[in-house]
């Protein structure tokens, strides 16, 4: 019983770590430019496919990971420069819609280049290897995604807290005009945020594509399941998004194990909508998320 719980919590945390990487990608872009990037999921699957392709070409795993992250980041920055930059100053609605279609486009490109058949994601450890924690058996892949997620998140918080770039990013997200007046190259900062978001997406994609799932063109749909984490944490708060992602990941796995079987017909696939249910209930009480702050409106 306990061992099952441990097993579930760890795999929930692994799922949550991937949600956190996706959610962080959303939040980074949203803070900087108030754009909700619906293409994040497709960036994730692009990253995963790049990783598979690079490993297939014989590049060592660690180098392939870095390359896949960098390439996806560059792709994201390129999208920002080519498509999003002309829309600065237009309603956020327009840019958010645009990213949906950028996502469709990326997805079509992934299918054109790599086809639709699923592939296995190479891992540096044994692909289906497990580790015994007491009586619980936990996949190495789960441990790997939690560790990679935490390391990246830590690095990101150090970056925005202590580096010049991080300060510039925070300034640009607080007030673009004032930042420009202080000599911060806001355009380049926006590109950087998209680069970071692309990197997070690729990392999430690599770990998401590992056993027990595989890399196929539907991988990007995971982003739909990460939305509640972003909203629940409050759109502007990276810390909130990460916490909400971990909580929702664990809740989802627990719901799948304990709630689905007792709910009859309604329980079938109930874990898929459970995060949304939690999100809606929280938003009724706190309409700006757990860590977001209410905007003061002036007439």
């Amino acid at each position, binding site marked *: 019983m306990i061992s099952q719980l441990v097993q579930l919590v760890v795999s929930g945390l692994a799922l949550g770590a991937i949600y956190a990487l996706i959610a962080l990608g959303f939040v980074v872009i949203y803070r900087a430019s108030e754009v909700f990037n619906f293409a994040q999921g497709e960036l994730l699957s692009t990253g995963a496919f790049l990783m598979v392709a690079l490993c297939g070409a014989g590049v060592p795993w660690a180098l392939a990971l870095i390359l896949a992250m960098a390439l996806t980041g560059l792709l994201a920055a390129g999208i920002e420069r080519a498509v999003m930059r002309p829309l600065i100053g237009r309603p956020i609605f327009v840019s*958010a819609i*645009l990213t949906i*279609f950028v996502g*469709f486009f990326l997805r079509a490109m992934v299918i*054109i280049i790599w086809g639709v058949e699923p592939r296995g994601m190479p891992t540096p450890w044994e692909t289906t290897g497990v580790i015994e924690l007491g009586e619980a058996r936990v996949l190495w892949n789960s441990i790997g995604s939690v560790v990679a997620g935490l390391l990246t998140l830590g690095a990101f918080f150090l970056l925005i807290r202590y580096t010049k770039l991080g300060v510039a990013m925070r300034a640009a997200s607080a007030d673009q005009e004032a930042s420009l007046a202080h000599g911060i190259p806001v355009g380049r900062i926006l590109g950087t945020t998209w680069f970071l978001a692309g990197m997070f997406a690729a990392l999430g994609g690599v770990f998401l594509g590992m056993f027990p799932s595989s890399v196929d063109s539907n991988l990007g749909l995971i982003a739909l399941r990460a939305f509640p984490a972003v909203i629940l944490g409050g759109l502007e708060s990276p810390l909130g998004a990460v916490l909400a992602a971990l909580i929702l990941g664990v809740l989802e796995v627990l719901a799948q194990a304990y709630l689905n079987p007792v709910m009859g017909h309604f329980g079938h696939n*109930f874990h898929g909508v459970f995060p949304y249910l939690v999100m809606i209930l929280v938003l009724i009480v706190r309409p700006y998320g757990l860590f977001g702050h209410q905007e003061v*409106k002036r007439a």
Partner: protein
Amino acid sequence: MPTRPLLTRYEDDLKLFPDRWNLIGLAIAIPILLAYPFLANAQWLTVGNLAWVTVVGAVGMMMLTGFSGQISLGHAAFLALGAYTTAILGEQFGLPFWLGIPVSGVVAAAVGLAIGPFALRLEGLYLAIVTLGLLFLVNHTLHSLPDITHGSIGIAVPMHTWFPAEGTPSPMGTFAQPLELGPLALSFERKLYFVFLALAMLVTYVGVNIQRSNTGRSMMAVRDHDVAAAVMGVHPARAKIISFGLSAFFAGIAGAMFACQQQYITIEPPFDLNMSVQYIAIIVLGGVGTIFGAVWGALVFVALSPLAENLFDALKPHIPLLGGLSSAQQATLLFSLIVVGFLIFEPLGLFGLWLRIKRYFLAWPFKY
């Protein structure tokens, strides 16, 4: 660019047909629309039917997102509710379709009105994601009631013209049978076309009337600045809830029409996020905030998918990689390119394009 000529009287602002060009256009359009089902081949007749369904759905989307500025990713949920209401009423109770369609609208509107108050507290993207959650919840509920919706197997949609008498089994309803009317052979699809044309016309007329009435103007005031609107005596909460209800009502009707057109429906696809996004794209393509945009966006969108098929068939021999895409993905690809282009270069969509053309001819021979 101003979206219309300068008006000096309130009466001009409220006119149904602002200038005589609208009337001339209508006079030309009506005979063409009536003759269309006899001129088009089977494929384009289906396209025509789908186009009217989409027009109704797009007018509903325009109410919510175009007029009152509430971004919703849950439009497909209301279409699904409408479609399943019609299907279940027809299958279980033998209700005639002309009763089923308005009842579907009412059911969807009831859900929309129930959601409205929750939506009041949310804004922008929070609302978008919550309505997306609503879509997932509605679809999940439809899946989990297999006794009446038949779950993922799908459900047949009978179209009865009258309450069927006991013991006369007609599984697809009497409307599905072809009809000879003098020299005109009215197949099921053609009959459907005229019903849908009438419905789409009616909904467009109602839409235009809402746009130029107090209700529509208060929605637009809330969209443009809700605090300022409230200061001027508009009730923002009421305007938003009304727009939710109206939007859901039209979406429900569109869903019911869609079900009748398909004759057999499943939950996902078609009622998924893709459909919601398509409706958003339609109103963006047509021009946000105008009924003109909703109608033309819908017509162009529906006509695009057979065109995309032809285009890709022509391109395939030259570009080898395109073969991997399904026809739906081809249409999506073409459509995303077009919408991205419009968003970047012509924010007012087809409506903006139309304004430019009109402006050019009105000002001719001067540039502006």
